[in-house]
């Protein structure tokens, strides 16, 4: 995935901003009974690291995820029943996290579009 010269990732403050954003995001997801079971792993440290990877990717930060990684990484969740509604909920929480951080609607829509671009890979279809 290419990195735009002035990505939202940079505007938010790069890697350290992701550390702050991830806790807002991860707490929202854990408190939402509709999706919390997908994230409620025994190893919350590793889960949190994966959320940082996700936020970095969708805000245009440096990453090297491939479609194959997305498929492999979410296969067990699809087996647990992960579907489009769940992806919608995650994108909603992503949007409200960014809103709280002062990001405008236009950019939130751009982030949602980026998240949507990997939807099929995530859902293994």
């Amino acid at each position, binding site marked *: 995935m290419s990195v735009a010269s002035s990505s939202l990732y940079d505007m938010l403050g790069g890697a350290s901003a992701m550390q702050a954003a991830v806790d807002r995001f991860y707490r929202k997801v854990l408190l939402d009974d509709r999706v919390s079971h997908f994230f409620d792993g025994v190893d919350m*440290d590793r889960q949190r690291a*994966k959320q940082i990877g996700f936020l970095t990717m969708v805000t245009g930060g440096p*990453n090297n995820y491939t479609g194959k990684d997305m498929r492999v990484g979410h296969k067990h969740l699809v087996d647990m029943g992960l579907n489009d509604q769940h992806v919608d909920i995650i994108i909603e929480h992503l949007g409200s996290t960014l809103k709280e951080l002062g990001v405008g609607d236009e950019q939130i829509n751009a982030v949602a579009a980026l998240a949507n671009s990997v939807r099929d890979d995530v859902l293994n279809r």
Partner: protein
Amino acid sequence: MAQIVYEGRQTDLLPGETVLDALLRIDPSVPYSCRAGLCQSCLMKATRGEVTSKSQVGLKASWVSQGYFLPCVCVPDGDLEIAGLGNEIESTSCRIESVERLCEDVARVRLRPDKPFHYRAGQYVSLVREDGLSRSYSIASLPDERLIELHVGIVSNGQMSSWLSSGEVVGQTVSLRGPLGECFYLPEDNASTLVLIGSGTGLAPLYGIARDALRSGYPGQIALYHAAKSTEHHYLHDDLSQLSSESPSLRYLPVTEQAEGELLRRIMGGEHAWPESRIYLCGSPTMVNQLRKKLYLLGADLNRIHADAFVTRAK
């Protein structure tokens, strides 16, 4: 050219390569995902050599201090010897020196290692009997004490615990695999409070951590909660009461769990400033996982929650 040794196999790090690239040549099944130092899928431990600080960004302080790093963003200056997670463990032979009952279902077992055994107070070991039977126990002693002290929960029909608590084992040899785990005091700690929470023999590592912190001159407050099913099961009550009367910064808080959720109620009543606290959770997986999630949602920093759940596992 730097050499990379992984699980006994060796390769040269080629120009422009990361350690992960080299590892994948040795073993294509090495886990990885983002290749950008974010997802921690490729986390490994360097057992020899220096990793770069860039490859430890975002890792918990307790992992960094043990040499864990992210191979996907590591280009080292020198040679590295690397162990995958779970394969970084050494074995030390020990003589059982004494066994003593602390309460109805806890025994204190003291071991003398054959060679220096390096650990941090609060870590755990896997104790292996001659026939291969093994169980994990936390260490209650401090590294400079002559003997290694374990608190063994006596489980009915438990093969290892009935054997250990029988009293006929003194003088026998066992081996310890480890040390393992990330529950230990960090000397550079700038957290305002240490909150130590244990149930049952989960008290063992906390007893070590509390004493290590006190002895290292930790400047903040230490709260030590011990949940047990009855007063009789607060098996270090006298030792800890005395220690806290000698050390004004330590509060010993025994909790009798007669009602569901009593421990959580007591912890909430402690009014700790969660975002500024370092938290240690030791006990059953259910207790550890529930409290970790609860405290994280209350604002605790996940990088400052340290937990080793006691999984009872037959081999």
